[in-house]
């Protein structure tokens, strides 16, 4: 088309003539009018409705924070996970790919403060094996956060524009090395993926593209971050590149659910390095500054101690992020109520909350790295001083143990077996 001014004006005139119907206009105005009059204008009182969704803005903030954390964690784990199946099919082809982007749509339901219909989040992710990753998250059509995984600095920065705040998460050397390795060396991802069992689903058509499907039901795919997980990947039979990935997961005995769909993949894209530079306006404040626990587990002990303080002496019943996050939030809420703490959480409180979340990130690393981890929080309490609460393999076949009283010890595999036998719940 010849885009001269005359043509542009012709199209602009068309847009200028677009008018909504009077009924639609009145409906839109009435909806806003009702909200202003009935609910007031203070942030804490302003309710907003979208279709069937009715949310209390302040209460939703807590759910939003949880959703963001889960979104970031899931997104990070897919940094490597996305292309694992594809690599099994096309390792040579993707060997040279160092940049790609995708869209992730996530629907979560069953968490407290969420509307019955649940909440939706959309993430647009761009990955460069040299620089890192950028994820832009949107909720209800509004930008909820921007996260930057900066490989050079070993940091994840999450900016939350609505709250004018940002979080900083320092990665461990091991995690960083793994991320660099996975995003830069597709073969290593393939090798890891091939350890998992998958089912071939046969052929189907998505958006007119003939695809072949694969299904994985192994929680290791997301490092145990999500439980009861089933993931499906659909690959274009012509190009051997992924077209769509679907994942369903649940926690808290099926009460909480997370559905993820990833699509709009673009491979070998041009990257503007400036897009990976965190943009934090001067008036934004640091919301939390946390470290992913190192493999020595000292920070895990601290995280577990904090969790027990929050929940009146209980440990997380599981290392699944959905269930354990719910327990942490409930415990935290109850503690605040008991101690008469009101208002927005302080930076110290948020850092504590985040440090607890980091236990699950750490555990997911152990699963992905085949460190033979196990966790017995469902039965072990702080009173069970000699019972194994958590363990994982370290070098030379030795195991590190965290006991119920949070003391730690390194033992052989044989000794571990004895300990676990002695403290296993009697049925």
């Amino acid at each position, binding site marked *: 088309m010849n*885009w001269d001014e005359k043509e542009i004006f012709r199209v602009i005139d068309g847009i200028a003539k677009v008018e909504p119907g009077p009924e639609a206009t009145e409906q839109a105005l009435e909806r806003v009018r009702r909200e202003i009059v009935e609910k007031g204008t203070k942030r804490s009182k302003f309710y907003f409705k979208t279709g069937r969704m009715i949310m209390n803005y302040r209460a939703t903030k807590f759910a939003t924070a949880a959703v963001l954390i889960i979104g970031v964690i899931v997104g990070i784990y897919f940094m490597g996970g996305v292309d694992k199946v594809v690599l099994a099919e096309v390792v040579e082809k993707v060997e040279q790919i160092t940049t790609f982007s995708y869209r992730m749509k996530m629907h979560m339901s069953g968490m407290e403060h969420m509307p019955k219909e649940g909440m939706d989040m959309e993430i647009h992710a761009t990955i460069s094996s040299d620089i890192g990753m950028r994820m832009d998250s949107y909720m209800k059509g509004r930008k909820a956060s921007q996260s930057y995984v900066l490989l050079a600095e070993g940091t994840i920065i999450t900016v939350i524009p609505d709250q004018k705040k940002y979080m900083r998460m320092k990665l461990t050397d091991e995690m960083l090395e793994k991320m660099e390795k996975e995003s830069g060396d597709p073969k290593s991802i393939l090798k890891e993926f091939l350890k998992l069992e998958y089912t071939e689903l046969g052929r189907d058509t998505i958006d007119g593209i003939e695809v072949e499907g694969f299904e994985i039901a192994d929680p290791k795919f997301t490092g145990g971050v999500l439980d009861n997980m089933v993931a499906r990947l659909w690959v274009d039979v012509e190009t051997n590149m992924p077209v769509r990935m679907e994942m369903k997961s649940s926690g808290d005995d099926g009460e909480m659910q997370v559905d993820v769909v990833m699509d709009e993949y673009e491979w070998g894209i041009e990257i503007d390095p400036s897009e990976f530079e965190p943009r934090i306006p001067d008036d934004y404040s640091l919301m939390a500054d946390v470290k992913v626990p190192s493999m020595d587990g000292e920070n895990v002990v601290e995280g577990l101690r904090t969790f027990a303080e929050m929940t009146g002496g209980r440990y997380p019943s599981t290392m699944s992020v959905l269930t354990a996050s719910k327990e942490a939030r409930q415990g935290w809420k109850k503690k605040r109520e008991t101690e008469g703490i009101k208002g927005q959480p302080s930076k110290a409180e948020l850092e504590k909350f985040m440090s607890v979340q980091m236990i699950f990130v750490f555990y997911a690393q152990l699963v992905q790295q085949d460190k033979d981890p196990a966790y017995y929080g469902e039965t072990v309490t702080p009173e069970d001083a000699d019972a194994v609460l958590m363990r994982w393999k370290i070098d030379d076949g030795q195991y590190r143990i965290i006991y119920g009283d949070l003391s730690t010890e390194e033992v052989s595999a044989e000794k571990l077996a004895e300990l676990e036998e002695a403290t296993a719940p009697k049925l």
Partner: protein
Amino acid sequence: MEAGQTKLLHVLEKSGAKLYTLLVKLTLREEVAEDLMQDLFVKLSSSNGFERSENASGYAWRSAINLAFDWRRRQKRVHDGLEGKLLAEQNEPSPLARMVQAEEMQQVLEATGRLSELMREVFVMRYFQQDSYEEIAERFGKQPQQVRAMCSKAMKELREFLTDKDRQKVEKEAEKYHELG
């Protein structure tokens, strides 16, 4: 009633219908415009800038434009949205002509989204909303001739974006054809 509520209601009664119409023009979808309208007032209710602003309606206009283009950036192009219905009601062209028109509108709106924020706001008010240079100048605290110059520059950039995009499309198709051959 609180002062904040009164201010919001004033903007709603004075400019609400026009704001909604603007959102429909920029999104080409009524239901999206309705949601964005709600988002707009949520945003205004918690905005210090709006609270302090002496020209509340002007602030709302600019926020609405930015919200609409933020939404556009996140959307894939759709051809089965409201644009078809709206165009059909106005011109009753053939289905093919409707598709072409809708595609052209999407292209122009997409290119408009690539203009700088100020230029985009001025451009939208002038051409999509058909406000006078004087009205726009008043909203931005500028002279009408400055607004006119900005519109002219915006049109030049828009043309460049559109031409460049067409060129890229042709090159891509040629490349594909070459690969197939």
